[in-house]
């Protein structure tokens, strides 16, 4: 599972694999193996090799809150499609780049096809998770850069779309 959060203007990417109470969390080339229990609603007790994290996590439609060491940190989760949740995303954040490195498992459109905002364009798989690329605008598909079965790297443009005015 890939996750992205925005905090203080930066984007943080995390990868997490779960096996029961064990979690393998990768961030910035560091791998953390932790065990975690939710002792009460939102109250997490997380054991790392060298320390324990005790915190409360809570979420609204727009933000997630972490109460940790006496401080509340508010982060904005970023959608799997690379866009922020909840709020309407800014135009400049609407793009067609792959949010992950993985394999293209489905291409749902053809070149020159007319598409509407929200249409599913492509599905990319990585780490047993699938990510959807949806149409950020109404328009016409100009060029599809990857076909089913191909490998795509994070940040690569999946396709090009001619926006409708």
């Amino acid at each position, binding site marked *: *599972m890939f*996750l992205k*959060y925005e*905090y*203080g203007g*930066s984007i*943080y990417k*995390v990868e*997490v694999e*779960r096996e029961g109470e064990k*979690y393998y*969390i990768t*961030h910035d080339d*560091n791998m*953390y193996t*932790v065990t*975690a229990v*939710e002792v009460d609603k*939102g109250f*997490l007790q*997380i054991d*790392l090799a060298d320390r324990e*994290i005790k*915190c*409360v*996590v*809570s*979420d*609204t439609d727009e933000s*997630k*809150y*972490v*109460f*940790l*060491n*006496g*401080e*509340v*940190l*508010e*982060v904005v*989760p970023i*959608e*799997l*499609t690379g866009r922020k*949740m*909840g709020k309407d995303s800014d135009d400049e954040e609407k793009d067609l780049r792959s949010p992950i490195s993985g394999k293209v*498992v*489905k291409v*749902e459109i053809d070149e020159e096809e007319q598409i509407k905002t929200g249409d*599913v364009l492509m*599905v990319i*798989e990585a780490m*047993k*998770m*699938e990510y*959807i690329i*949806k149409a950020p605008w109404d328009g016409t598909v100009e060029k599809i850069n990857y076909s089913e079965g191909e490998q795509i790297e994070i940040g690569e443009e999946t396709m090009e779309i001619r926006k409708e005015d």
Partner: protein
Amino acid sequence: MFEKVLMANRAEIAVRVIKGCQEMGIKTVAVYSDVDKKAPHVRMADESVALGDPTPSESYLNIKKIIDAAIEKGADAIHPGYGFLAENPDFAKSCEAVGIKFIGPSADVIAKMGNKIEAKKIMEKAKVPVIPGYHGSKQDIETLIKESKKIGFPILVKATSGGGGKGMKVVRREEDLRDSIEGAKREALSAFGDDSVFIERYLDQPRHIEFQILADELGNVIHLNERECSIQRRHQKIIEETPSPMMSEELRDEMGGTAVRAAEAVGYQNAGTVEFMVDASNNYYFLEMNTRLQVEHPITEAITGIDLVKWQLKIASGQELNILQEDVKPHGHAIECRIYAEDPTNGFLPCTGTINKIELPEGPNVRNDTGIDEGMTISPYYDPMLGKLIVKGEDRKDSIEKMLWALSRYAVLGIKNNVPFLKEIIDHEAFKRGDITTHFIDIHFKDWTDIKEQLPVDALIALAVYDSMHPKRDEVVKYKESDPHSPWKSAGKWRIGV
């Protein structure tokens, strides 16, 4: 004693007063506007009456509706709390008119103390020191300029009907006088519909120190020591403590005696507060008298062991104040922090929203006065105070430690609040030294922000764990449900939270 008291207020103060009544076996009636239907003060009370429209003038400020509710429920007294109708002489008079006891001083005293100019005149007559100034009715610019020069700089120009910071200017140089006075008058006119101003000596490095008064209806008056309330933002207190770190035994006796004299001068009854400004040389001046319970009353309760709400009830029902001045023997040190839904990084602008999760600190000598609940919405209709956190310690150091601990366990998630800001003030070296004035926040926290350079990796781990425990990625879910041709349907390897 009263049989049934109506609480003409909402939120934490309504809850607090209701508890006091209940302990004494007095039935309670809550009133509530539409947005407060499920609020804790309604839940706590024995009975409740709906006021309707949440607009203050249609609900908690509506004298008729509240008096009608009291009559309907057969309440024999009304407690006004603070704010709303607490210092409205018409309300006190209306209660009297229908034979319901208003828990507070007489309408006449409220009116006198509500007019700042008259209040100062009464105090001057009673030899209570007031700040040198001009409070005359001649409001032409030339008179005001002449009077200002007499007082000496710096001076403060302030709206007669004002409150908060509106219609208020500091003038340090003679050449700025005319512009400032004219500006203050304009602001006063637009804010209060009255352009009259008064002029006073402006104090540098001022402290705001107030004395709690208890006065019964038989003429007994005592004070319950001071509260140091200098930590303010936008001219409103956010942290109060007692004793004040600047207070000596001698000064306390002197100021306390003055406060009692002030209360006696107006024939004060019930609980009240005499506010003083104190300058760097410990000269003190009468500022105003608040004719009601203060927000910060719990710190006085903490160190004196005296329950102010219960005494308000006892006094209003005619009981004698049997605590002598020499019986008031405070111990320890108490601090209160006001928890507001506001953004300290954006001019302390009130924030609205829904409280998603609350975890309050609980422990010995930690008191939470709140009127909030999980799931509750903080609306723009009323004051955005979420609650008050009060701690008591053996001494100031102990109580600062406890407050830091308590704030670090105060979790209100879902709505921006000032807890991190309060914590940094309490943890500030100058605060710890007791080196505080009303300018403290302006001096030390001008461009404060709580956003860190870097999201701590522990938070990231926690988020990752939480999100794999509770997968909830909107778009994905929506897609699966709405589209029968969804590729997810056949995606065998799709897994979340396995």
